[in-house]
């Protein structure tokens, strides 16, 4: 099949994130940055979100602390 004309480029990659070395050692699962509140300290929570067939290991979320 012909996928048609090219439309655009999409870059798929996790956004860089600033975490402490200690947090980096704790978090082995991929972490994606969320927008932190002004003055809020990023906090990594090891809370599986709706673990399902495509999420067997759960994912660590980073939320404003």
């Amino acid at each position, binding site marked *: 099949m012909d*996928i*048609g*004309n090219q439309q655009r*480029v*999409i870059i798929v*990659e996790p956004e860089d994130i600033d975490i402490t070395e200690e947090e980096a050692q704790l978090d082995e699962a991929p972490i*994606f940055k969320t927008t932190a509140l002004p003055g809020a300290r990023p906090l990594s929570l090891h809370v599986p979100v709706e673990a399902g067939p*495509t*999420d067997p290991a759960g994912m660590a979320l980073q939320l404003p602390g």
Partner: protein
Amino acid sequence: MEAGKHSGGSERLGRLRRTAAVYQERYGLLPGMDAIMGTEGAIATRRRRLERLQREAGEIQAAIAATEVELARLDEWVVFCLVESIERAQREHAEGWSPRPVLGFRIWRVADEALYGVRLPWTQPGMTATCLKGKGDTEIPHSDGRCGRLGCGVYVAKEIDPLLVGFGVAELGDVALGLVALRGKVVEHEHGYRGATAEVIAIAATRGARCRFTADPAEIARVFAEPASIKSGQPCPDRAQLLDDISSYIAEQARKAAQWTLETSSG
């Protein structure tokens, strides 16, 4: 240390000159003063040269400092221009960014030794694209047209049905339909995508009278490594029902994957 020696020597020299002047007043021209006067001339010449060099060194230091400032300003200007240029290119080409993979669908022809894509056999669920036309190993899949309108990359379709129709799956024999996650650089087309790296995250495959539907990574890997293992799967329904089941299963896996990523994105 050199400066100290020089300074001490100069003080002593000054004292000796004053003493010599006293002795000349006292006894007239001292012995050896002609040679000393010649040397004094050489000293005066070098003192002037030293002062000129020191002045030039100061000017050079000032020029170095000014040039460093100019360089820093030019660097800042180039940074500004590059950011503008890159952001303009991103806007003009409507470039997108996503932390989540782009999902699409692929068909393979199933044989005992491998699952065959349009161009290459797959023996594992992952594939990293190369430019088969040899147009360079960077920025794959190429998006500047150097390797044709439909260039390099791992191809996936946006929708299942056009894929099944386009490949004539109804008459193709043993096939596998997969849900594929594309990562890295992904080029979007009207009806599909070309990706830099692809990973199959769900598959529905038939081999003979058996089929295997799975989203388990280990089972998917086994399907690609040992396609004959599909024969130990569940019995297949008739062909028409089978294609419906395959499509429904993969579509459901796609819906779950999209739902899950939406849930995580909302926190």
